[in-house]
């Protein structure tokens, strides 16, 4: 019989220190598996499965936020990382809102309109603004996290604290994925504003475009790209966060510079290459949507492999002395 929880265990071992997994995560998964095996019906098993997976998410978040297995000074550094990340995210979003209000005409209303018309226009613009914030939220969080890691993380931070930051990035991705694709669009739609589709609604509209084929292959590929971007966009936090962590052996100034540059390059790849390639190449839209994330994950792996070698050589030299 296939027991649930094996993938969860592997994932926990990847993001959390081993003794935490042995002591806490395995205990939870063992009870979860036992409860699942004892269930009498398929309905009860499904319920246990949902409850077990939710409990695992809470457990993982508690271990990451509680920073279990991280030394005292590194714990302070991690708190600094998250504080900077929060502040920068809030500032970035405020900047976007102010820019939209000031330069995109959100603040300007017709002078001689009736009060009812003004109220309707205000409501419409507020909801458009909410949709804009929803679309930009994943990148603002990614930028905030990168800034936090670059400015707050200690140089040569331990593997445990890197894992905590990485776990926070993964959790952020999952929350952002759910928030930007379902929660926020549904919230905006509840005000009878229908230009913010959920992921499911977008998928259905792409299927309609594919079936009718009235607008040519370019439009179909454009619609497909839009759909896959909704999947890939929240995971920018993970890709850029991983890239920022890979720079942990560099000085703070270098990290901040490269962190900001990485965010700019991410946007450049997205705007200049991905949008261009969807019209000019035959590459599948799913690959194009994930391209910026893949580039940064690959870059991070290369940098981590390269920085591991000098660190090992340095420790060997220190030992021989």
């Amino acid at each position, binding site marked *: 019989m296939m027991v649930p929880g094996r993938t969860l265990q592997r994932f926990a071992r990847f993001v959390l220190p081993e003794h935490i997994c042995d002591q806490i995560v395995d205990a939870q998964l063992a*009870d979860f598996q*036992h409860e699942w095996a004892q269930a009498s019906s398929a309905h009860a098993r499904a319920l246990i499965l949902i409850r077990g997976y939710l409990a695992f*998410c809470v457990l993982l978040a508690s271990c990451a936020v509680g920073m279990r297995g991280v030394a005292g000074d590194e714990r302070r550094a991690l708190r600094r990382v998250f504080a900077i990340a929060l502040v920068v995210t809030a500032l970035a979003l405020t900047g976007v809102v102010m820019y939209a209000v000031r330069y995109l005409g959100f603040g300007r209303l017709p002078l001689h309109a009736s009060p009812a018309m003004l109220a309707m226009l205000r409501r419409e613009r507020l909801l458009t603004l909410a949709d804009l914030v929803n679309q930009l939220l994943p990148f603002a969080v990614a930028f905030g996290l990168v800034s936090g890691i670059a400015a707050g993380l200690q140089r040569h931070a331990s593997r445990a604290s890197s894992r905590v930051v990485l776990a926070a990035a993964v959790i952020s991705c999952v929350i952002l994925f759910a928030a930007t694709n379902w929660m926020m669009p549904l919230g905006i739609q509840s005000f009878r504003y229908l230009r913010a589709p959920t992921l499911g609604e977008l998928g259905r509209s792409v299927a309609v475009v594919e079936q009718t084929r009235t607008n040519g292959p370019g439009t179909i590929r454009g619609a497909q790209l839009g759909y896959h971007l909704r999947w890939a966009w929240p995971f920018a936090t993970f890709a850029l966060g991983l890239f920022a962590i890979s720079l942990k052996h560099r000085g703070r100034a270098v990290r901040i510079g490269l962190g900001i540059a990485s965010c700019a390059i991410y946007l450049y790849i997205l705007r200049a290459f991905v949008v261009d390639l969807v019209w000019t190449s035959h590459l599948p839209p799913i690959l194009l949507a994930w391209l910026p994330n893949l580039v940064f994950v690959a870059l991070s792996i290369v940098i981590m492999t390269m920085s591991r070698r000098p660190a090992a050589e340095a420790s060997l030299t220190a030992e021989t002395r």
Partner: protein
Amino acid sequence: VNTAKTDLPRLSATEHLILDLLSGEEMFGLQLVEESNGALKRGTVYVTLGRMQDKGYVESWTETPAPEAIGLPRRLYRPTGYGLRVLQAWAAAARTMQRLPRVRHA
């Protein structure tokens, strides 16, 4: 003496409840959740148990799995002697606090 900065053992409400439940018999984490009637959650109880283990209030070990058992071996928890003494001291302190007369300022 500033008690906030000394190394006096501390017991949160959740830790108190867990020690109370464990003082009767050794239990699994999920059993504790069921026995607590909703006061303990299955997502947080293991983290609390881990923290209590670090403080030395409880000890744990994995059960020997039965031959037909599937999945990971389960972890059993029981209070240490120190944990029980802290619980008793905490209860005594609570009783003393309750007996203190309330002084109302005019």
